[in-house]
């Protein structure tokens, strides 16, 4: 198989697309935001609860879009649950830089762990926003914005 293809559409990503984790409405939720990519039509809503120590106690999502955006949202929820919001902010920036090709997760220090499967999007500029949409939405939810769009 084509290298770029197998790099991007790894089994783990396809699995999260098929059976997304934490795929439900969280009610009640302390924070929520809607992320929309008008060019693709991708739409996700992210819900989260944060405790008094600014730790994310629960995070869920609903919505639809391509495999990359859906898998990214799913893996993000499993990754940030139980983390402090400052740590999440750091992850957001690392993820963003990796997707844009500014951070090479194989050679530069980072905390991205299994999220490295998304490194392949840097070769496909048209798909970078698919991978980062849920992260932008999470940031918006944390910062109290209700809507975010990427295009």
């Amino acid at each position, binding site marked *: 198989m*084509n290298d*770029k293809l197998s790099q*991007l*559409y790894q089994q783990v990503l396809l699995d999260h697309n098929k059976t997304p984790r934490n795929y439900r409405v969280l009610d009640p939720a302390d924070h929520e935001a809607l992320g929309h990519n008008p*060019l*693709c039509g991708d739409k996700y809503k992210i819900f989260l609860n944060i405790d008094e120590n600014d730790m994310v106690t629960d995070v869920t999502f609903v919505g639809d879009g391509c495999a990359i955006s859906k898998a990214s949202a799913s893996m993000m929820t499993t990754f940030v649950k139980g983390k402090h919001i400052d740590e999440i902010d750091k992850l957001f920036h690392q993820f963003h830089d990796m997707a844009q090709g500014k951070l090479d997760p194989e050679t530069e220090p980072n905390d991205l762990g299994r999220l490295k499967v998304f490194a392949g999007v840097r070769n*496909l500029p048209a*798909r970078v926003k*698919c991978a980062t949409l849920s992260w932008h939405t999470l940031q918006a939810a944390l910062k109290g914005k209700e809507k975010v769009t990427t295009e």
Partner: protein
Amino acid sequence: MADSSVSLKGSVAAAAAGTIDIERCRDDFPVLRREVHGKPLAFLDNAASSQMPEPVIRAYTEYHSRYHANVHRGVHLLSQEATAAMEGARETLRELINARSSKEVIFTSGATDAINLVMQSWGRANVGEGDEILISTMEHHSNIVPWRMLCDEKGAKLMVIPVSEDGVLDMEAFASMLNDRTRLVGIVHVSNTLGTVNPVKEITRLSHERGIPVLVDGAQAVSHMKVDVQAIGCDFFVTSGHKMFGPTGIGILYGKQELLEEMPPWRGGGDMILSVSFDEVLYNELPYKFEAGTPNISGAIGMGKAAEYIMSVGYDAIHAKEQDLLQYATEQLQTIEGLKIIGRAPEKSSVVSFVIEGIHPHDIGTILDLEGVAVRTGHHCTQPLMDRLGIVATTRASMAMYNRREEIDQLVAGLRKTIEMFR
């Protein structure tokens, strides 16, 4: 002299004088020889932008390398050559669409710009509060947004002709929607998303019975079928160079001379005037009245050459080749389980839009790209049509005269691989 009669001799496909062998015309398009991601390119995104053949590229670059100068101004040779080449292109385009006079052919930056010209000039002078503009559900955003803007400004109503699930215009509904408040009918000749060919002649006849002018958006028509604006009878017709094997950033507005004469200029500036003082401006005659500023000269020359190329291949040959590709693509795609073709009008141009259960078009588009197949994915600038059909996006394969059955096979193989991956 570098005029509009640059010969096709260098072209591999130049068979007999003035004709081009369609089976060999592929060799005239240099880009089709390239590879992408290590695979031979199968370019099936012609409805977004078609490729340019050597004669067009040569005509385009020759202007810049031999006689780059402004038009309608200089007394020097280069300016005269540029003027002759650009006006020659206008005449070729007049011939292509069979306008009565080249005065009726106005260069614009594209079909969108041409529609905006009609909206700004004719629309603002003729549409008032409570009036209606009638368009269809399958319009491209370029034939929706300008009219929405005008309606908002004037307090007019934008009315929409429905389409069936198969993507066929509801002609009965159309006829019943024409009324005394209808000021303009704007209709796409060929749907970029579905391939549907609309009965523009009949639409024009019915509209004219009530004295309503008709604008036909022909961006997707001219590379596929003979367009005769006099036979259609429409009042305005717009198209883009880059959808007919010409350069980007150039297009034309055809308008009936009597309408264009009455219309006020839209953009003001050089070239569109006869004389200027601070108190009074005398406007130039047609078509220059609507061509303020230095035009896209090389674009116009290239578009003219593209029209010449199309005519030398011949619409009969183009139609036969493309209909074969359409039929083959439709048959082959139907063999894929879970694939649904969107747009099943009886008369279609060579466009096949489809969805595959459980796989988003953008994933399909990326995987096909990595397999060397270029298609368009998304809403194709027809969001209201997508809403009507209850989908967010499609994958669209759009064929031109130079495509081959092998490229459809490459598409189908790519789709099977995609489905295998997502299983």
